[in-house]
C-alpha cells in the first residue's frame, strides 16, 4: 500500500506540510521523497511539468499538484474517516473561500516579506501581515477550529505557515502570542494533534533556513 502513495516533498515547505497533515489525518501510509529545488529530480519534472514545484502527490503513478487541490483529493478519495471538508455545500464553500484567502492574501504578503530588500518594504509587509492575521483571529472567533468543532481544511491550510511565524513570536514589534490570543490557543490545540506535530518542524530551524536563503540572495 505504501508504494502506491508517494509525496514529492520539501521539509521547509508549508504547502508540503499541508499534504502531510492531511495524509496523517486519514491514516494513509506514503513514501516521502525529499526534493532539492536547486537540482530538481527527473521525477518532479515529469510529474509537475507545469510548475516544477512541490508538493506533488503521486497516487498509483498519477500526479496531483497544488496543495489545496491535493488535500481535497485526499479528502474525497479516502472518505472513510476524518472528513476534512464539511458535507454541507455552503459550509464547504466557506471553507474553500478561507483556504483561498490564506493563499491569495496571506501567502502573498509572506512572500513580499521574504523578498523585502529595504526596511521600508519590510515594515510595510509586516504591517500588512499583521492585519491579515487579525482577520484570521476574527474569523476563528470563539470556535476551537476554523471549521467549527472539528479540525479541517482551513486549519490545515493555515497552521503550517502560521506555526512558523508564531514560533518566532514577534512580527516587527507586534507580539503574536499576546495580541492574537485566539490564534495562540488554536496553535496549541492543533499541535496536540499528532498529524500536525509530526508534520511540522522546529520553527527555529525553519527561521534559520529562511534567513540563510535571504542572505544568499543578498536580502539581509
Amino acid at each position, binding site marked *: 500500500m505504501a508504494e502506491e502513495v508517494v509525496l514529492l516533498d520539501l521539509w521547509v515547505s508549508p504547502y508540503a506540510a499541508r499534504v502531510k497533515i492531511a495524509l496523517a489525518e486519514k491514516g494513509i501510509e506514503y513514501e516521502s521523497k525529499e526534493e532539492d529545488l536547486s537540482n530538481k529530480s527527473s521525477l518532479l519534472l515529469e510529474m509537475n511539468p*507545469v510548475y516544477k514545484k512541490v508538493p506533488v502527490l503521486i497516487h498509483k503513478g498519477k500526479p496531483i499538484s*497544488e496543495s489545496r*487541490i491535493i488535500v*481535497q*483529493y485526499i479528502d474525497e*478519495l479516502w472518505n472513510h474517516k476524518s472528513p476534512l471538508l464539511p458535507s454541507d455545500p*455552503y459550509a*464547504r*464553500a466557506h471553507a474553500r*473561500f478561507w483556504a483561498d484567502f490564506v493563499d491569495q492574501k496571506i501567502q502573498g504578503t509572506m512572500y513580499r516579506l521574504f523578498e523585502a530588500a529595504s526596511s521600508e518594504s519590510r515594515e510595510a509587509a509586516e504591517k500588512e501581515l499583521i492585519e491579515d492575521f487579525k482577520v484570521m483571529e476574527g474569523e476563528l472567533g470563539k470556535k476551537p477550529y476554523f471549521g467549527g468543532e472539528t479540525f479541517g481544511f482551513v486549519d490545515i491550510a493555515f497552521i503550517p505557515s502560521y506555526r512558523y511565524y508564531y514560533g518566532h513570536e514577534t512580527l516587527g514589534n507586534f507580539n503574536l502570542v499576546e495580541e492574537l490570543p485566539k490564534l495562540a490557543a488554536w496553535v496549541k490545540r492543533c499541535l496536540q494533534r499528532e498529524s500536525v506535530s509530526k508534520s511540522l518542524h522546529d520553527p527555529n530551524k525553519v527561521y534559520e533556513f529562511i534567513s540563510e536563503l535571504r542572505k544568499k540572495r543578498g536580502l539581509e
Partner: protein
Amino acid sequence: MEDKVILLDFWSSSYAMRVRIALEEKGIQYEAREQNLVDKSPLLVDMNPIHKMIPVLIHNGKPTCESLVIVEYIDQVWNDRSPLLPSDPYQRSQARFWADYIDKKIYTNGKKLWREKGEKQEEVKREFIAGLRALEGELGEKVYFGGERIGFVDVALVPISSWFYSFEKCGNFSIEKECPKIVAWVKRCMQKKSVSKSLPDPQKIYGYVLQLKQKLGID
C-alpha cells in the same frame, strides 16, 4: 420552498461570467444586480466584507464569494443536472488544477496585457500565449475540456474570450494565429446558449477598455 438566487454582478467581469454560465447551465432562475464598483453598495460590502468584490452569489440570503468557489457550490447544490465537475476524485483534481492554472496564467496576464506597453507588454503577451498553448495541450482532441459536455474548466476559461478582441487590438497580435485550437473551442462554446447569453459583445468590451485607458492615462 423556492430558491432565491441573487448574483452581485458586473457586466465586463470574466469572473462574474463564470457564475452566469454555471447558473444558465443548471437552468437556475436568478436575479443579476449590476454593481457600481467605484461606489460600492452596502449590500456588496456586507456580503463580501473581506474582498468587497464581485461576483457574489447570495442563495436564500447566504453569500458565497470567489468565482470558482461559487461555481463548485452551484454544482454541489444543484447536483441533479448538468454536472460541471467529474465524479471521479482524480479527474476532479485535474479539473481544479487547470481552473486554478487559468486564474494564475490567463486571467492574471489578461488583466495586465491591455495596461502594459513596450517590453513589459511583450513579456505579458508571451506568458499569456504560452498559457493558452498549455491549455490547448490539455484540450487535445476533445470537444470541450469537460469531454463531450462543457465542464468546470470550460466555464473557468471561456469568459476571457470576450476580452480577446481587446487583447489583440492592444497587444497587436492575433490569438487565432497563435492558438487556433483555443479559438475553435471558443466558437464551439459560443454555440451553447448558456455561454452566448452570459458573455458580452467583445466590441463593447473594447469600447470599455478604451475608456479605462483614457481614464488611467494609458495610450
